[in-house]
């Protein structure tokens, strides 16, 4: 925009630039999706067509096309972002231009946008004993307007530079050279960085590099906060499938071994099986016991893993994304019902004592229930995603639930996860809620004592949250965004003395400074009541949905 004038700035069509930006960003997304499809559809070509001149040429062409398609993504995205920033900045400059002009006119000056001048009528000089002040004011307005023009010119230059730098070469297009693969070390180095930084780094990768990282290091990509939900899902599904196959294989091997031992016993040949044992029968029984224990462990892990696989692959259920999966120790799983990067409301559910991979199905249903309730009970039609966050090692039994160590250890992971949701969300920020149940409330509270990226917190059936006042929880909200409820017959209510629970003041106590909501008193079975907050027609369900969807004026 050479010879930029105030009139040109005033008349600039920011909406048209914004529309162009949207077009480029949409094209970038389409290129990204097409590249993913191309990569997944052709990466096995070399394995299924390994020999011959035609195979060689075909494979080489596939590599070239993958690279060139992948290389188109970043330039499209950069141009789209530059145009979006251009449109936003132009609007801002136009607002400033209007304000300066209105201010000058209100003060009696004459502004000529076309000529780019500010002048005072003669009578202003005549009616003052300090005409030099009038001249200075004129100069000041001119100086402000010139400043806006300078900013507009800078913006123009930057946008043109980005566009020119990212247009394809007339001969080579975007080129077919592949950028270096993402190494394991590079991925490990990202852990510990703020999720926003991780997200920015992930964005610098071409689709090909992202696919390569997911394919070769799914264990790392799947847990990296700041990587978009869809990419984490792809990575974690690969780990889940591989684990289920591996566990089934190990289980079959154990079955075969046990069958073999029994067959040898039937044939009276245990001595051959245990040649150095003085008691072959005892050795056989010991090994069968060990096999049974190992099978139990495998079965437990398979139960939970299969429950997750069945849920995320069920076409008759709302779509779900696997944001974390590990079969190590008690297991961990993070499953989102709905896409948290796209949803308007996102609730993260942290379960409590005895939550682990084998028992994950029950907690998964709570995520399904909260997503369904949120989408059903919001008249605005905004979408709700609900995440089961079993990203920590919860206490194994009630006798361990008196220790704060599980909550302490979970703190950075939950904090990072919530920050990651903010970093990867598309468009305006979502309304994010974190809900804890039982010991899960303690885990949430310990994280929020420092800081937790959430607009609202909900504590149900809490043994205390590590602080005695809602004001001591640091979230993207105030004490008025901290909610709690304890059912009248909930066993957890019997574990405190007055309002002091194991981990601090009962958050359901008005003295805590948060807000309370109604849950049904529950059944005569206090232990069962502790788990009834998601039961049909329990008022707690409606109230949780209202909080999650930002309808806090309807909470009872």
């Amino acid at each position: 925009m050479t010879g930029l004038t105030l009139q040109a700035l005033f008349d600039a069509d920011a909406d048209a630039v914004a529309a162009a930006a949207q077009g480029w960003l949409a094209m970038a997304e389409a290129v990204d999706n097409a590249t993913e499809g191309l990569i997944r559809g052709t990466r096995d070509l070399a394995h299924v067509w390994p020999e011959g001149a035609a195979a060689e040429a075909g494979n080489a062409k596939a590599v070239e096309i993958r690279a060139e398609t992948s290389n188109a993504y970043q330039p499209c995205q950069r141009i789209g972002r530059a145009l979006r920033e251009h449109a936003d900045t132009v609007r801002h400059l136009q607002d400033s231009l209007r304000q300066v002009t209105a201010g000058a006119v209100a003060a009696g000056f004459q502004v000529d946008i076309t000529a780019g001048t500010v002048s005072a009528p003669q009578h202003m000089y005549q009616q003052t004993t300090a005409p030099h002040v009038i001249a200075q004011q004129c100069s000041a307005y001119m100086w402000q307007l010139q400043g806006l023009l300078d900013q507009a010119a800078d913006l123009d230059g930057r946008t043109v530079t980005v566009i020119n730098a990212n247009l394809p070469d007339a001969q080579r297009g975007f080129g077919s050279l592949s950028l270096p693969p993402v190494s394991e070390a590079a991925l490990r180095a990202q852990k510990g960085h703020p999720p926003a930084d991780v997200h920015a780094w992930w964005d610098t990768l071409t689709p090909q590099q992202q696919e390569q990282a997911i394919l070769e290091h799914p264990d790392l990509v799947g847990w990296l906060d700041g990587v978009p939900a869809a990419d984490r899902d792809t990575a974690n599904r690969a780990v889940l499938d591989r684990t289920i196959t591996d566990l089934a294989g190990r289980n079959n091997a154990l079955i075969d071994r046990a069958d073999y031992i029994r067959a040898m016993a039937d044939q009276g040949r245990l001595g051959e099986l245990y040649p150095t044992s003085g008691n072959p029968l005892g050795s056989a029984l010991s090994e069968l016991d060990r096999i049974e224990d190992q099978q139990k462990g495998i079965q437990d892990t398979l139960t939970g893993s299969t429950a997750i696989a069945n849920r995320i692959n069920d076409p008759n259920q709302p779509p779900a994304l696997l944001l974390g999966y590990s079969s190590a120790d008690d297991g961990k799983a993070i499953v989102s019902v709905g896409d948290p990067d796209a949803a308007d409301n996102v609730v993260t559910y942290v379960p409590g004592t005895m939550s682990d991979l084998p028992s994950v199905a029950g907690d998964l249903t709570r995520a399904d229930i909260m997503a369904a309730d949120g989408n059903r009970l919001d008249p605005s039609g905004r979408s709700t995603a609900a995440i089961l966050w079993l990203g920590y090692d919860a206490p194994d039994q009630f006798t361990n639930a008196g220790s704060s160590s599980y909550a302490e250890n979970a703190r950075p992971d939950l904090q990072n996860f919530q920050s990651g949701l903010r970093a990867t969300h598309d468009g305006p920020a979502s309304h994010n809620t974190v809900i804890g149940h039982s010991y899960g409330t303690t885990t949430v509270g310990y994280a929020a004592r420092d800081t937790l990226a959430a607009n609202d917190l909900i504590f149900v059936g809490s043994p205390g949250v590590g602080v005695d006042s809602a004001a001591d929880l640091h979230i993207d909200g105030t004490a008025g965004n901290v909610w709690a409820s304890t059912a009248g017959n909930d066993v957890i209510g019997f574990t405190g003395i007055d309002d002091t629970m194991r981990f601090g003041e009962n958050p359901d106590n008005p003295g805590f400074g948060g807000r309370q909501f109604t849950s049904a008193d529950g059944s005569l079975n206090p232990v069962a009541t502790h788990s009834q907050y998601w039961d049909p027609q329990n008022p707690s369900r409606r109230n949780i949905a209202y909080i999650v969807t930002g309808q806090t004026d309807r909470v009872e």
Partner: protein
Amino acid sequence: MPPARRLAHALAAALAAGALTAGCDSSVQQPTMTPSQAVERVAARAQEALRQLPPGATLKAELNQPEIPCDNGGDKSTFAEIDYKIDYPAGWPVAQVIPTLAGYWTKNGYKTVTDKRTDAKTPTLGVEHPDGFRISASLTYRDNGRIDAYLISSSPCLQ
């Protein structure tokens, strides 16, 4: 007594009390049916409700949970819940869903559990059958003018 030990003792006592009072949930004994039988009855109750409404509407399951644990980490009892959206044609009297079902359920021995019929945005009526199965009817008046209608049917905890 240290707080941690007090917590463990209280929970152990409550678990024992729970074992003694198991089966005393709500107003009915926990039915001894299989999860699939419970799901059948849950679905049947929803269809029965639909039959009381004017023809032309169908049910679409939006939440289908056949075995929800009643108690995390406790016994293995489960309950079933299916949330249906009522798909209805243009001109169908959706605003009559709750009054019509209120009359039917009252006549057939259901007792009211949740009465939010006066809620302007999401009126709801929830009832329980003498056998412990529950069902609710609710409407959502969307800001864009559309009215969505739902039936939420569930079983009690099964033994």
